[in-house]
Every structure is written in structure tokens, then in C-alpha cells.
């Protein structure tokens, strides 16, 4: 425990250098986004103000704007069922949106399970829990493939049978029941069994959105990477730290500063915690032309 006391908190240097707000800005905005989306959904059942009806699988805002989860729709499609017109329009809007801003923006700015796993990650760090069962980050793509093949074979929207993301979100809006046990299981799994286990290795929803945003223009870029002082705060705080290395340290290998890996969630936490202001939001086209041909990492 004494070790914890001595070790400076991640981002404390950034707070000193940039001030409280600029060292937490993206985290606060992200929490604001997560909670406001939840609040919009809850306004109906709790206060009777029906701005949004439904849940993250499909919702209708102000009776006009449909939004559908393309992953659920794809599973449904594979069972041989095509959504109605509004459902299809909803899929289209969501596809375009995440293809532009980055698929995993869903994970870090919308998904309610992110609050749970971030809490587990934070607590893991505070309690100094070391050691983690190893499981490759590509596991989620295998699970994704399994749910798609499984939906086609079983005729059931397969992942929805156990999906903790929709269970939590639906639970909060329509009544939780025992869904809290599933959420608790995810929390405890991340806390004790596997660091960043659920979102980073297992969740096929994140995997799907990652692939969806594979070519998204909006990216985090290590623009001032020459200013990096190797404090490692960004690696510590990042839920997908493997995406940072090529962009931050790849100058010698001719790799551009833009984080192109699709599993980056665009959460912006690295921007926050960096005292040297290495990172910022940018576009994938910001890479200098000399590095254009370099693929920085495989899909992970």
C-alpha cells in the first residue's frame, strides 16, 4: 500500500502543467455524454417526458429520428429477417455516424458498460491489483464471428441472449431484474481476473464498432511526439495501450503520428493525462505523405 502512496497518480503531472480542466476535459465530457444519453432515455419512464423511446438496440427520438444498433440488426439479418423502413433508416444513420467519428466512440462515449469497466479499471489501479489472466485482444473478433455464424445457424439474435451492454441499458430503462448480476460479473471480472478484460478482449459489440470505424477520419494523433518524456501515463490510462506505441514511438520506423488502429476508442484520455500535450484530436489524413504507405498495426 505504501507503494501506492508514493507513486504519483496518473495525470497529476498534467494537472500541474495544464490545470485541472484541461487535464480532465475529455474524461468529463465523456462522462457527461454517457450520463446525458442515459438521462435522455430515462426521462420518459421516470418523468414522463418522452423525448426518446426504446433503448440502444433501437430508439426513436422525438417520434422522428430512428437509430438502430447495426450489430443487432446484422445478427437479425443473418437469421433471415429484414427490419422495417424506420429500422433500416436507423441502421444507416448509425453506420454513417460511427464510420465518420470512429466506431469505438460508441464504446467510450455511449456504452453504459464503459462506466462499469472504467470503474473496475480505476479500482484495480487504486488497490494495486497486479496480475491478470492473459487473453489475446483478437479474442473479441472470434466471438464476433461466432455470434454472427451462430445467429445464422440458430435463427436467434444470439448475442442478445446474454449481451451485458443491452442488459444493463435496457435494465436501467425497463427494469433491471437480475441483470445487475451480469453487470457485477463484468465488473469483478475486470477487477480481479483480467485487466481491461471485457471491453478490451471479449466484447463483440466493441469489436463490431471497431471494424465499423476502421477508416474513420476522426482520430487521435501524437502530433507533438517529439515532446514525449516517456512518463508512460498515456499507456497506463489507455484502455487499448497497444494502439499508442506505433504512433508515439514509430517515428524512427517511418510510421506517422496518427493513431490508426481501429480499436482506439477515441476517448481522449491520453490527451488529458499528457503533461507535454503530445496528443490531440485530428484526422487520419494528418499523417505526412511519407508515412502513408506504412500500416502501423494489424487489427487489434
Amino acid at each position, binding site marked *: 500500500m505504501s507503494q501506492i502512496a508514493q507513486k504519483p497518480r496518473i495525470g497529476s503531472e498534467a494537472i500541474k502543467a495544464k490545470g485541472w480542466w484541461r487535464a480532465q476535459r475529455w474524461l468529463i465530457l465523456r462522462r457527461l455524454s454517457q450520463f446525458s444519453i442515459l438521462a435522455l432515455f430515462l426521462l*420518459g419512464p421516470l418523468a414522463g417526458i*418522452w423525448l426518446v*423511446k*426504446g*433503448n440502444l*438496440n*433501437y*430508439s*426513436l427520438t422525438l417520434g422522428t429520428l*430512428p437509430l*438502430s*444498433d447495426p450489430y*443487432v*440488426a446484422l445478427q*437479425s439479418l443473418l*437469421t*433471415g*429477417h*429484414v*427490419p*422495417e423502413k*424506420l*429500422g433500416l433508416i*436507423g441502421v444507416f444513420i448509425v453506420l454513417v455516424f460511427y464510420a465518420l467519428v470512429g466506431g469505438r466512440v460508441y464504446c467510450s462515449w455511449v456504452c453504459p458498460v464503459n462506466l462499469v469497466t472504467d470503474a473496475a479499471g480505476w479500482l484495480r489501479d487504486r488497490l494495486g491489483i497486479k496480475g491478470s489472466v492473459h487473453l*489475446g485482444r*483478437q*479474442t473479441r473478433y*472470434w*466471438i464476433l*464471428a*461466432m*455470434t454472427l*455464424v*451462430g*445467429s445464422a*445457424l*440458430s*435463427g*436467434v*439474435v*444470439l*448475442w*442478445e*441472449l*446474454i449481451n451485458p451492454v*443491452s*442488459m444493463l441499458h*435496457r*435494465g436501467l*430503462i*425497463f*427494469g*433491471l*431484474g*437480475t*441483470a445487475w*448480476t*451480469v453487470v457485477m460479473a463484468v465488473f469483478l471480472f475486470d477487477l480481479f481476473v483480467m485487466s481491461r478484460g471485457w471491453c478490451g478482449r471479449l466484447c463483440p459489440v466493441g469489436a463490431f464498432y471497431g471494424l465499423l470505424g476502421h477508416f474513420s477520419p476522426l482520430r487521435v494523433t501524437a502530433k507533438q511526439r517529439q515532446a514525449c518524456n516517456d512518463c508512460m501515463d498515456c499507456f497506463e490510462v489507455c484502455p487499448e495501450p497497444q494502439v499508442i506505441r506505433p504512433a508515439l514511438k514509430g517515428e524512427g520506423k517511418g510510421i506517422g503520428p496518427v493513431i490508426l488502429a481501429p480499436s482506439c476508442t477515441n476517448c481522449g484520455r491520453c490527451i488529458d493525462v499528457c503533461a507535454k500535450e503530445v496528443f490531440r484530436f485530428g484526422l487520419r489524413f494528418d499523417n505526412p505523405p511519407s508515412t502513408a504507405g506504412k500500416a502501423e498495426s494489424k487489427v487489434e
Partner: protein
Amino acid sequence: MTDTPNKKSLARRQFLFDSARMACGVGMLGLGLGLYAKQSKALPALALRPPGALPEADFLGACIRCGLCVRDCPYNILELAKPEAPVATGTPYFTARQIPCEMCDDIPCIKACPTQALDHQLTDINKAKMGLAVLIDHETCLNFLGLRCDVCYRVCPAIDKAITLDLQPNPRTGRHAMFLPTVHSEFCTGCGKCEKSCVLEEAAIRILPSKLAKGELGHHYRVGWDEQKKAGHSLIDETKMIDLPDRLPEGSSLPGHYDPASGHTTTARGLPGSEAGAIPSLPPGLGGKP
């Protein structure tokens, strides 16, 4: 020169090994999920889907668990299954005994559905088939006990069509009639009002999935009298029909009975409602054209 191919083959081995490991591990998860999916298709008998719901096997593929039907139901009868419910998680259902379907004319639940899980072709709520009412217990139903409860009959939105009262003599008293509630599947929508309002501790009339409630004739089966009506005449050559003589105690006679041995027909009492008319036991073809 020699270690490059070696390295390559090692990498290939590693790749194959990793892939096999993933395929097996995730495959096991998939197997579990698949079996769970199979189980989830067994909707419990008393959980009813909203009007227009596809058959369960299709419903679980088409429904995206959004809950819009739940929201747009003006009577709040629907709920999304919680993980502990024996219904596929997140799918809409209602329990008739708790709160039955009010059969809105405009069917807002179907309109709200963004998929075909609730069939948008269904525009007449009277054609809905959420299930079928079955008077499941003849021992406790008050009308079967000879009393006049009639509640299921009176609350039925399709009164005298979906539920009729069938008059039977009461053999216990020997002098009263029993008014037996009788369900007709052609008109029953499965709304569940009868089950909800049954006055017993446990309802004697219940909505069951049609699959459970209905028998089904063999597809080759033809009902003779229907075919005869359709064709306008008997389907067999009735002159060649052989009727074996009936053995009756000497001197006795059955009203309306045709006895081929003597060629005589005993005078019949007209039986109301009998399709055979005044002479019920006259074999077809011998008593004039049907």
C-alpha cells in the same frame, strides 16, 4: 538463408495453433449459447407475445429487443423479459392473468415495431392470434358445476363468437341446464380477458399457444359430410352400399331406423339441428338426394 523459411514455418505453426485455440475456446462458448438459444425458443405456455407476433422461432430472429411496442401500448400490458424470466431476455410479452390485451383498433404496438417481429400486415385486431382460450378445467369451472357464472363469456370482446354458452342437461339435478362456455378458435384472438376475469383462485380458462391448444387433422383427412356438401352430391355410389341388419330385441323399434332386412323405416321424431333431417339413420342415397 536457411533460417528464414524455418522462422516462417514456426510463425505459421504459431498462427495455426493460436487460431485453433481461439476456434475451440470460442466454439465452446458458441455451443453453450446455441443450446441456450434453443432453450429460449420454448416460450412458457402462459407468456403471450403481442398481437401479430411471428411464430416463436422466427420472432427471436426478427425482434431486436428495443421495447418500442412496450412503450406504445396505451395500457402498459407488455414488458421486456428480464434475465431471470423464462422468456428470451429483452423480448416483449404479457401474462393474461395479470393484465390482458385490450385489443386496440389501431394496434399501436405493431405500428411501433421497427422490424417484422410484429407482422405489419395485421391491421384488423380481431384477426390477431396471440393464443387460444381453452376451458382447461371442467371440474372447477362454475358453469360446469351447474352455476351461472358466465364471466368469461360476458367479458369476451367477441362474445357469442369466440365464446358461446353451450346448453347441456345437468345430470346432477336432472332438471336444470348447464351453460358450458365453449371457445371457437376461428374467432378467439387470445386477448386473455376471459383468463384475467375468471373468478376462481386459479383460472379454469386459460390462453395457451395455439400450438398447444389445437389438434390438427391429418392432411390427407377429408370430412365426408363437408366433401358431400362441396360436391353437391355423395362421393360414392350409394346404391351399392350394404347396410348390415341391426339386431334389436324382438318387438322393439328405433325411431327413424331403416332395416334393410325388412326394407322398412320406422317413423322418426324430428331432431332439431340434425343435418340428416327428419330421418336421421336413413343411409344416404336411399332417402332421396342429399
